[in-house]
Structure formats: structure tokens, C-alpha cells
């Protein structure tokens, strides 16, 4: 199963519709919505946290959170 944590640098995914309940409210409010495009911009030197761009927000989140959010690797 693909999650945001499984993206490589520069890769893009789309948050799947089924992910809604697993997204923390705070992230949802910051624009991590189902269907949104997520780009992984950078992974921190110690492999955690990661730096993503979603819905125009540039966010740093931890792997632990990212691995809860399922994505599809290409748009359908």
C-alpha cells in the first residue's frame, strides 16, 4: 500500500478518498485533503521528517504521520 511516506524525492501522489479518517484534523485544515496532489520535496538528512507540498502548503511532517496517509501514485 502506498502512503506519503513511500514517495521518493520529486515524486507526486494523490491522497486517496479512503484516507480521510486517518488524516489528523490539523493536517486536513492545512490542506491535506483527499484527492489533493502531494509532492515530496525533500527528506531530512536523518531520513525524518519529510518536506511536502500539498494544495499550495509547504509542510514538514514526520514519517510516522505520513505513513498513515494513503495515496495513489497516479491520477485516475
Amino acid at each position, binding site marked *: 500500500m502506498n502512503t506519503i511516506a513511500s514517495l521518493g524525492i520529486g515524486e507526486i501522489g494523490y491522497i486517496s478518498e479512503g484516507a*480521510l*479518517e486517518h*488524516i*489528523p*484534523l*490539523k*493536517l*486536513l*485544515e*492545512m*490542506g491535506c*485533503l*483527499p484527492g489533493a496532489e502531494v509532492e515530496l*520535496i*525533500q527528506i*531530512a*538528512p*536523518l*531520513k*525524518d*521528517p519529510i*518536506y511536502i507540498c500539498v*494544495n*499550495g*502548503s*509547504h*509542510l*514538514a*511532517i*514526520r514519517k510516522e*504521520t505520513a505513513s498513515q496517509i494513503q495515496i495513489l501514485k497516479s491520477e485516475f
Partner: protein
Amino acid sequence: MAKNDIKVALIGNPNTGKTSLFNQLTGLTQKVGNYPGVTVDKKKGTCKLSATQNAVITDLPGTYSINPTSIDESIVLKTLLKKDIKESPDVILVVADVENLKRNLLLFSQIKDLEIPTVLAINMVDQMSRKGISIDLTALKEELNTEVVLISARKNKGIRNVKDAIIKCHVAAKASPMCDANYKIDPEYFDKLKAINPNFSLYELWLMVTQKNFPAAISKKEKAQLLSFNKDVSRLKKYQHKETIYRYQEINKVLKKTYIVDKSKATDLRSKFDKVFTHKIFGYLIFFAVLLLIFQSIFDWSSLPMDLIDTTFAELSDFARNNLPGGILSDLIVEGIIPGIGGVIIFIPQIAILFLFVAVLEETGYMSRVVFLMDKIMRRYGMNGKSIIPLISGTACAIPAIMATRTISSWKERLITILVVPFTTCSARLPVYAILISLIIPNTKIFGFYNLQAFTLLMLYALGFVTAILAAYILQKTLKIKSNSFFVVEMPNYKLPSIKNVALDVLEKTKAFVFGAGKIILALSVVLWFLASNGPASFKNAEENVTNNVENRQLSATELQQKIGSAKLENSYIGIMGKTIEPAIKPLGYDWKVGIAIITSFAAREVFVGTLATIYSVEAEDENTTTIKEKMRSEINPETGKQRFNFPAGMSLLVFYAFAMQCMATLAIVKRETKTWKWPLIQLFGMTGLAYVCSLIIYQILS
């Protein structure tokens, strides 16, 4: 505050320019910086909206929504929930960043649903063309049913329009909900909620349920009813999620008609910079290089102005001595006040340089990249990536740094950060370090280019940081507090620092340093001088005893004068006090004069040098005035016949100042933020105990 003043609250996402706008409106100079979480407390100011109408503006911390997860965000919730009717705002001024309007409108939609009159100010419009953004303002006003103004707080554009919009909005006093999101989710459920107290808007009631936070106007019975909605937690959570999705759908509809981004026109420097600044090797290398540069500059750029100040004060003393009529008052000025104040003023160049670098880093957006680089490391030691901001801003002063921990949502991580922040080398330690380093470390180059003194200073800062981390590790293992660690940080755009913001920041902080320390040293130098030039019977006989002593017969006139000076000082009140504590500090390599300086340092560390300057001036009965550094260099330890501030004693003092908790103001703030005396007391005894033991070991090994 006059009765008919309009109460305006500034609310918006973090880093959207609320404080910049606040400063423009009120003429105040609150701190502005390019990272989320600069403002962590309320601040009020007044503003003239028109010839007849004034407003009281409240600047608030930034927040992404009104569902708070940290202390700074909950301040916004409390303001909105009308906890105190006198404080509740008449008009809300929502400040949004034009570049991320969609996300900013989420908070806006929540506030609209609270049915408070709202004005929307879209900030940073100076960036629009660079980002390829265009807005149909008339349509947007219509769609949102709100006064909307485009502004640039940094360039002071559109401020007039903001004022007009506030007045217009206040007069119309219309407040319609934007989407009433809740009704769309489950009408039946929310009808029941609304029935509890129809005087409140539905969204207010919903917030009371989800946040368990109640205004005074809610009765006991109503409170119980509201709480009964809180039983089904999973349902609450589901509805909150649905609500957010629904709001975004509505916002998308609005923006589709009014907000266009042409990506082909956008320039994207951010990703290019980020590739370098957050790179796995370059990222840390750059961070380290920046630090090296700062410390080199602190020594290199400051040596000339510092020497100038030092000699100026020495000459000032001379001038005063020669021109004032003799007597107690002029003694006080020449021996007490001038050297004491000089001991503070002399450090302005170094401190200003440090503040300059920190302000520039804060304005560029680099701080958030450091947060990103450090989170993993900080987490391992019981803190949070966000803890790095207090640890860095603590180089100015621990007090704002402790306030800055309010953005950390986990209580355990926040408490640990508060407890270890005072290990960060604050600007009050810088004077002590600088003068001791210049006395005990030779001014040579290492690795062919780097100043050894600057390197030593860097090592002392590193010592503070490493100790903070180790202390955090111990606290993490010993504190039995459960709390969830969560981490989401927004990475702001890189910006060229605004010269005005940087200059103001440096000026404000330097002023605070000079006046804060100046006031204390002024009072202290009077007390010190009095205690040093008066004493019991033995003081009055000191001169006679020295002159009559057979051993002293062969001494020259100046040597005799010196002996008399020392004897008098030793028998003065302060000498007696110092001698009493001397046994406790002697094993660390200090004499009683240093001991007195350490004691006065508990009021504020930066008075260390000023205190010594005053004591030494009283002692030197001769007419030659020397600079502070010279006085310290020529101080002799009578037992060894060598310099008082030699390498072992100097190192021991450096370590003592690195670790000891010598700041009352910090203790008071820790008490306020943790709400108990337990933690500040642990800091006081823990840190000072550590300082004593380490200095003891260092001195005993080195000497």
C-alpha cells in the same frame, strides 16, 4: 480606552503579516519575523481610523483554524468565545496571505460562521505578479459577502483602505455566516444543538462542545447539555473532518470564479534554495558555516568600537575626577557609577552584532529549515523540532525564548524545552565570556585563518547547547508525563530581510539590554560603592595600621597607597561580606571580589564586569585611571603572586557562568508559564549545583 472605540482583533494563519499590519496601524514596533509562531501572546495598540473614530487593535498569535492544539492558538479561541464580554472584539480583521488564499480562507469561513462582523485583508499583494496571481476583487467581495481589501503591510500600501473597511463594517454590523457547514452535515443533530441556547451562533455552540470551553454567559444546565454532545467522541471527530472538507469545497467554488494563478509566470526560487539548505550534507555544512561566521564577526567587527568605548570611559573618569569638586558625591560618580555603566556600555557592539545575525536569519525564512533539519535529533532527546527556535532565540534572552515554547503542542516536550533553555548562552553571558576570553586566550589564529578567541567563544556556545540537550535527555527519562508528540511545520517562502524590520529588532533588543542592565548596575554601583567605602572600626583604622606596620617602612609611596587601598577595601562592609563567603568559592579559584561579582550576578549576569570595575576603582586609590580590561589584567592573586585571572581561574569562571542559573527574571517567567514554583526551583538548584561542581573540577585539574 474610550467607550465608543471599535475593538478590532487581528486573526489569521501564522506568518501572514498580522504583526506587520498591526505595527502599521498602531505605530508600535512588535516583533516581526519570517517563520510561523513569532507572536505568541496578545498585544494591544490604538489606531486613529478617522477624524472621529479610534480603534483598539489586538494582535494575536497565528493559527490555522479555531481548533487549537497549542497554547498560542488557544489564545485566539478564547478571544473569539467571548470569555470576557468587555474584551470581545467588535470587528475581526482576518489577515490572509495572497499566495495561499485557499488555506487562509478556511479560518475565515470559520470566523464568518461565528457571526461576528469581519473584514478580510489580503496581504503581500506585492508578490502577486511574481507568482502570476490575479484576483477579481469585486467578485470576491460579492461571493464572500464581506469587505475585502488588498494590502501590502510591508510596503505600507492599502492601510487607508483597511481603516475605511473597518469603519464601514462596524457601522453595517452585518454578520452572516459563510457556509453554516454544520447544518449540511447532519441537520437534525445540529438543530438540537442550536436549541440549547439560540443566543449563540451554531458554530459557537459547536466550538464549546468540541473545545470544552465555555463563555461566562452559559448556564450550568446548558453546560451539562452541551457536554452531553461530547460523549460520542468518534462522531465529533467525523463531523469535524466532514466540516473541514465541506468548507474547502465552498472555498474552491468561490476561488474558481475570482482567483487565477498563471503557473507559467511564477518564479520559484524556493525549491532551488531548499535543495541546498536542506541537503543532507550541505544543509549541516551551511548551518555550521553560518555559526562560524557569526562568532568571527562578534570578535572582529567589535574590537575597534569596544576599545574606543573603553578608553572613552577611562578618560571620562579622569575628566570627572579632575573637574568635580572633591567629596563623597564625586567619589561615587568617579568610582561607582562611571565604571559600572562603562561595564555595560562596552558590550553594545558585540551584542548588537549577535542580534543582527539572529534577526537576519529570522527574516530570511532559514529558521524553519533548521527546525526541519533538527527535528529527528531533538526528538531523540525528548524535545521537538520546534524547540530549536527557543534554543536559538535564547542567545538573545531566555525570556522571549521561554515564551516561544508556546507553539509546542506536547506538554512534556514543551516543559523540557523550558527547563533547558537557560543553558543557551544568552546575551547577558556574552560580556562575561568576552572579557574573560580576552584575558586568558591568546589572540592568535588557528587552522591559519580562524581567530582562536572566536573559536573559544563558539565552543562555549556549543557547550551551552550540548548541555541543554543532555539535560533534556535526562529529563525525558525521569519526567513521568504522558503527552502525544505531534509535528507539522509550515516552511515559509524565502524573503530578503526587510532592513527596517532588522534594524528595529536590533535596536529594540539592544535597548532592552542596555536599559535592563543599566538600571540594575546603576542601583548596584551606588550600593556597592557605599559598602566598599564604608566599614566598621577596623575600616577606619586600616590606614593607620598599614602605615604603622614595621614591614611596610621600606615601601615606596605608591606601593604604600596600594596597600592602604586594599586594606581599607578588605575591612569595608563589602570586604567583610566577601570574606565570609570566600571559603566556599576559594576551591573554584576565586577571591572574595569575584565572589561579590558572582552574587550581584544573580540579579543579572551582565553586571559581573561592572561590579568588578566598581570594586577595583574603589580599591585603586591612585589617580591613574585605567580601562576595565587593564584593571582585571593587573589584578594579582597575593597567594601565588600571579595574575588573578589566569588560565585555570578563568576557565573555571567561564564554566560557572555557562551553567549557573543566575537570572531572577527567567525564574519568574518559568513560574508563570509552568504555573508552579517547582520547576524554577529545580532550575535554580540544579543548574547552580552543576556549575559549582564542574568549576571545582576544572580548577582543581588545571591548577
